[in-house]
């Protein structure tokens, strides 16, 4: 059994952006998906833990891993929305932009649509019929019925109400000519436009939490910056919390309030953005920051972390970075470090900051903070 994500603890507050950094395969995406229970089971297993979510307007916190499917569906796309890495894959190629955005409104805002369309009384059964139409759950025969005179005008009003909402959701992402984009198919749009459509879809219901899983990785560099600005602006408008997942440290530095670093399915460090970039504690974070090329660096010299990410099949209790860590001592291979608060708002999982006496471990087995330069 692969332990793709193991004991990750994240907390995100209203209006805050938490950056989640890690290299490919470190479990960032699985973490994000499991927040919404999107990891398919089987083959996936939610072995334990909880995802506690408290919506802004109701005080009740719920555990997303344990609530019934129906309740979870009411939260997905409504209170928690997700933006995917590659917009070309995350939009259904067979459906128009309008059809795909309409689903969000139909699923979570159908009663508002129904109310705003001002459906007046008609023949008996009109209201349930149109409620179902607003919910996009009409059967084949109901759709035929909706084409007939008394209902047709009402359905048109419903449709117009929906169109307005879709257009305003699209224009919020600064898409030029939303009416035209609405009726396009994904293949007719550029990558940046597709990601804007995804963002419009995610923010359609004004969610409390936005999970952005590498939203700019598949885009051109010039468009990356614009999408990033867009997410930031919209976040300020909506006061949403954002979980921003990326392997790009410079992006995360720019957008996040706090940053968590993942390595091989484990969280190794969490701190405010400033602390993390100015004073990283975990050796992995330090190595990662050292690997970011700077303008001052001579050509051809790139710092790299020696070795590879360990296998995650039935891992032994140990620090997963120990085989690549310049500080590692014997204890690192034998026991698992805890993610503890080392400074104010700064947590790291490393034995370097533990007291050997607390661990009951001889000093010579502890990791060494001074490393002799051996290169």
């Amino acid at each position, binding site marked *: 059994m692969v332990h793709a994500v193991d004991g990750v603890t994240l907390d995100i507050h209203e209006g805050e952006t938490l950056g989640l950094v890690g290299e490919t395969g470190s479990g960032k995406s699985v973490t994000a*998906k499991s927040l*919404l229970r*999107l990891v398919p089971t089987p083959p996936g297993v939610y072995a334990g833990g909880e995802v506690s979510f408290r919506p802004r307007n109701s005080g009740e916190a719920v555990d997303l891993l344990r609530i019934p*499917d129906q309740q979870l*569906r*009411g*939260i*997905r*796309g*409504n209170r928690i*929305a*997700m933006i*995917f*890495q*590659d917009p070309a*894959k*995350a*939009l*259904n*190629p*067979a*459906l128009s932009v309008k059809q795909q955005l309409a*689903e*969000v409104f139909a*699923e*979570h805002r159908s009663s508002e649509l129904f109310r705003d369309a001002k459906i007046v009384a008609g023949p008996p059964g009109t209201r349930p019929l149109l409620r179902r139409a607003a919910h996009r759950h009409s059967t084949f025969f109901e759709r035929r019925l909706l084409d007939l005179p008394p209902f047709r005008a009402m359905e048109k009003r419903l449709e117009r109400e929906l169109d307005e909402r879709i257009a305003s959701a699209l224009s919020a992402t600064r898409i030029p000519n939303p009416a035209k984009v609405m009726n396009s*198919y994904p*293949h007719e749009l550029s990558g940046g436009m597709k990601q804007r459509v*995804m963002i419009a*879809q995610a923010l359609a219901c004004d969610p409390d939490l936005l999970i952005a899983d590498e939203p700019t990785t598949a885009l051109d560099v010039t468009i990356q910056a614009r999408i990033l600005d867009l997410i930031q602006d919209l976040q300020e408008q909506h006061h949403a919390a954002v979980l921003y997942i990326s392997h790009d440290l410079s992006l995360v530095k720019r957008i996040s309030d706090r940053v968590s670093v993942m390595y091989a399915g484990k969280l190794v460090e969490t701190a405010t953005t400033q602390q993390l970039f100015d004073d990283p504690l975990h050796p992995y974070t330090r190595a990662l920051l050292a690997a970011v090329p700077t303008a001052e660096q001579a050509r051809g010299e790139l710092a790299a972390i020696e070795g590879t990410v360990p296998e995650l099949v039935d891992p032994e209790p140990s620090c997963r970075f120990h085989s690549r860590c310049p500080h590692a001592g014997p204890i690192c291979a034998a026991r698992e470090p805890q993610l503890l608060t080392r400074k104010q708002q700064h947590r790291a999982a490393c034995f370097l900051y533990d007291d050997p006496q607390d661990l009951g471990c001889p000093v010579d087995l502890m990791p060494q903070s001074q490393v002799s330069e051996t290169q």
Partner: protein
Amino acid sequence: MQVREYIARRLLTLPILMLGVSILVFGLSRVGGSPIGIYIEHEMTPAEVAKIEERYGLDESLPQQYIAWLGGVVRGDLGWSGVSAAPVSSIILPKLMATMELAMLAALIAVVLGVSMGTFGGARKNKLGDHLTRVVAISGASIPIFWFGLLLLIVFYLGFGWAPLGRADPSIYARIGHPTGLYTVDSLLNLDFGAFTDALWHLALPAITMGYGSTAIIARMMRSSLVEELGEDYVDAARAKGLPERLVIRRHARRNALMPTMTVIGLSWGFLLQGTVVVELIFNWPGLGRWMTDAVLQGDQATIMSYVLITSIIFLAVNLVVDVAYAYLDRRVVLGD
């Protein structure tokens, strides 16, 4: 607009394809032996044979013969059927309709059952439901059609005596008019539901026999492409929107999984037409297939050519419909040309 343009373009290619088919049919008939074989006897002198050849225009060059034949086909003259001792055009229509009725019902069974079985199995990958549909599908693809037909015949005709043979009860058949030649449609047009039940009852066994193999192929295709589509990001995105699983499958995954399945559906029409020959023999169905068997055994070329030409054109038409359906399912197809 774009889709309409695409359909118009596809329609324009149809005559060209049909012309190609006609050349092929004509060419193959000349490879297959003398077209007057059925009229020649051993006692005839070469002069007598030459006289017959002259009578049918066989002394002229091949292109001239082709044009003469094509001209006849266009005017509705398909030649003289030796096995039926009548002009092909006068007897082909009721037989064609009999076969079409059977093939269309078989196709309907195959598409509806195949797509739903494939969706059912694909959505429950490696669970009990998936294994059950797989057993049904694999047996359907591997059981020979003649054996399956005989089996149904033995059980339901000889054993229980539930199913009738042939196409219709003669007394019921006589009491209604036949504007289309499709008995189920005719009986409905006559508002005679007794006749409709009778027609359907006669159709059931042969249609099931014919449709089973295609059901299996369509179900397998549908299952595997649905499983593939369910792994795509847009399915996760649809779930993340809060859609119920039923709609995730129906609106998102199934729609895209239908694309490759459509191709198989179009191609399986060829299997269906091929199956008519055996099925019509087994169930005593008065269609093209049995007529064709007789014609092949006796070397009746006008009949064979008409049969091949008509079934090829039907095949082309079905695949045109598939192409159009493609364009509606996925707009990217329209861009391809």
